[in-house]
């Protein structure tokens, strides 16, 4: 079979089982777009901005676990995609981004729409390629998908000069069956000796805490995690990225930890004697002041990426390997180990935890006149039966969603944790809805965030994506306002979001349904109505308390035991 470069690109995507490509055309990718036009296997989703393409591919990948694919042109197409690539990189999301490039002979000549895409994206990709020969397309694609999805996943960029896809140059095509790269061998199994050491330590623990992160979700290790946690009876807390891997409504779950984590989770971290970190990377929003982090703990750390181990916090028992296989091994070792748990000490530990829990650190007062954002998220939780996919933007609303929507399944909570990219929510929601056409997909957002990728409402219309957008409209960049209130004596420098559009009319002008909700009593019924419209996108502009803050809060650089508590709750 003789194919042109452009046809080979399409064929490679088919070979990789790609269903959707989120993209935006331009000069350097016209040959590829022409090849797309002539086939029916791969559906192209035309976004309205390349940032949207990368976030949508990312949301698709996060929700269904398959690599997301984006296609953009050279120059501005590529630079617009960078934010989405960096977002995926920070959260280790498998993605393959195809960027057009000026024809090979023009590279380096400052040609029209030329940028050094490989250079620009180098620090925010797992790897990138510039294809120099038509004959290299197939092997490069094979490598790119392999790299994106194996080991610690991440985005891979393939930069394709226009001449490489020339429809007039045809070569025989075959897709490599096997792939082996001598310079890349991700670890397949954890070290058994280390695993046994870890289990010994865990069985001796008197005040253990299991701390999990996005790695559990990425490696689909939720079942093993639940079994381990139930078997041991230990308390478990999760990072923002790990929510849902362990059921959020379970008694052993202490809630999220870190900057806006619960009192019980953070206090348990501070007092623990044995910390078991699983697929988490000791991010500064989690650790706070490193010198004060888990001061009394022996630390066990399971991670696929050796460079995550002892990067921020010194670890006592490192285990490098895929979370799922390491947990499988742990469960086996645990069954063979004759030692028993320190049940008396554990009972005492749980008693202490219940004391912390009884402070009800997330408590808030919902009055009768103005909607509290927490109440809005709780209502969303109720109306969707706790079973929706929730994509979020970045800000207070994101933290409220993480705190109050109790995720019982993995891959339901989709947010930009590492990079904290405003504008992520709506396009990510599109990707989720593409992966699960019949599922309820909610987008929790703020009036500032939503305006960063608002143009994607048109994409939603074109492809009939019935997202339910819940805008927690506080009139402020709430998270910025909160920091200014706490740390800048209330000087609200440029955090008021002036000149807001009428979101109802805006939604309607894009052909969607708009709702404005201002009364606490109207909220549940309105939301029911919105979710009942199965085939329509509904934009709910929910007017919430403009002065609400996210509690508890650990100031950057403070220890876990030094939390700001909500004015209503008992002060520590």
């Amino acid at each position: 079979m003789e194919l042109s470069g452009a046809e080979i690109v399409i064929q490679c995507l088919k070979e990789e089982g790609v269903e959707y490509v989120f993209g935006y055309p331009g000069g350097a990718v016209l040959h590829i777009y022409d090849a797309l036009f002539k086939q029916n296997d791969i559906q192209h989703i035309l976004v309205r901005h390349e940032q949207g393409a990368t976030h949508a591919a990312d949301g698709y990948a996060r929700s269904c676990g398959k690599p997301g694919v984006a296609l953009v042109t050279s120059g501005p197409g590529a630079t617009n995609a960078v934010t989405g690539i960096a977002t995926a990189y920070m959260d280790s999301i498998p993605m393959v981004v195809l960027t057009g490039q000026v024809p090979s002979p023009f590279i380096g000549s400052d040609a029209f729409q030329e940028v050094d895409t490989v250079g620009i994206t180098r620090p925010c990709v797992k790897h990138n390629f510039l294809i120099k020969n038509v004959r290299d397309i197939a092997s490069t694609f094979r490598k790119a998908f392999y790299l994106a999805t194996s080991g610690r996943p991440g985005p891979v960029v393939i930069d394709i000069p226009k001449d490489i896809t020339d429809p007039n140059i045809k070569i025989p095509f075959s897709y490599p069956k096997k792939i082996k790269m001598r310079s890349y061998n991700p670890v397949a199994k954890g070290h058994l000796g280390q695993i046994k050491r870890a289990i010994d330590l865990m069985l001796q623990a008197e005040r253990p805490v299991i701390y999990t992160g996005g790695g559990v979700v990425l490696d689909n290790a939720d079942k093993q995690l639940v079994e381990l946690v139930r078997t041991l009876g230990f308390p478990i807390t999760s990072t923002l990225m790990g929510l849902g891997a362990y059921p959020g409504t379970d008694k052993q779950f202490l809630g999220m930890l870190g900057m806006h984590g619960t009192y019980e989770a953070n206090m348990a971290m501070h007092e623990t004697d044995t910390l078991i970190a699983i697929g988490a990377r000791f991010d500064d929003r989690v650790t706070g002041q490193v010198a004060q982090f888990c001061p009394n703990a022996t630390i066990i750390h399971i991670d696929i990426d050796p460079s995550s181990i002892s990067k921020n916090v010194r670890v006592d028992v490192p285990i490098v390997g895929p979370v799922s296989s390491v947990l499988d091994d742990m469960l086996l070792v645990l069954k063979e180990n004759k030692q028993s748990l320190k049940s008396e000490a554990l009972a005492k530990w749980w008693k202490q935890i219940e004391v912390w829990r009884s402070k009800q650190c997330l408590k808030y007062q919902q009055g009768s006149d103005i909607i509290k954002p927490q109440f809005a998220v709780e209502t969303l939780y109720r109306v969707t039966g706790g079973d929706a996919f929730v994509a979020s933007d970045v800000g207070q609303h994101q933290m409220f969603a993480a705190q109050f929507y109790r995720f019982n399944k993995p891959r339901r909570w989709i947010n930009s944790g590492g990079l904290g990219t405003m504008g992520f929510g709506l396009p990510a929601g599109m990707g989720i809805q593409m992966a699960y056409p019949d599922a309820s997909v909610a987008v929790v957002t703020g009036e500032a965030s939503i305006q960063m990728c608002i143009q994607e409402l048109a994409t939603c219309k074109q492809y009939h994506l019935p997202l339910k957008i819940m805008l927690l409209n506080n009139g402020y960049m709430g998270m910025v306002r909160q920091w200014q209130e706490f740390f800048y004596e209330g000087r609200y420098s440029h955090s008021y979001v002036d000149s807001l559009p009428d979101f109802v009319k805006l939604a309607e002008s894009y052909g969607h349904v708009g709702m404005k909700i201002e009364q606490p009593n109207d909220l549940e019924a309105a939301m029911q109505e919105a979710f009942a419209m199965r085939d329509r996108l509904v934009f709910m502009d929910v007017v919430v308390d403009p002065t609400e803050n996210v509690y508890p809060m650990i100031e950057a650089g403070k220890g876990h035991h030094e939390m700001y508590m909500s004015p209503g709750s008992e002060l520590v």
Partner: protein
Amino acid sequence: MRHIISILMENESGALSRVAGLFSARGYNIESLTVAPTEDPTLSRMTLVTRGDEAIVEQITKQLNKLIEVVKLLDLSDGPHIEREIMLIKLKAENGKREEAMRLVEIFRGKVVDVTDSTFVVELTGKSAKLDAFIKAAHEESVVEVVRSGPLGIARGAKGLRL
């Protein structure tokens, strides 16, 4: 502490910039870096000298290993090794200074590789400290130009860093 790291990587364009980019992005210190192809044309060898405490150097080697194009690496400072650097140094050699300079070259077992009326070029190989010592001994006012390769290193013993 000073570490000398030997790296085998795929001989592909862009590989060098990945290493250099890694060091600047993560704020690691880089004292010298040399790259050249090896006997296997698909591989190049990079020798890198850096400084940092144990935790930083551990991160540096892990991050280097994480680069897709890095095939193998060895922190030579972990064991006994040989280190060599080459220097080409142009010295003033006017009037009475010639004799003195020649003596110095002899003491350091250097080689004169170019001579003019007023200068010569000396080639000198050794540990970096030896090259430093030569420059110091030669006196600042008589040094016209110094070109150094940066150190290369190889582990002692029977084993080699190869595929």
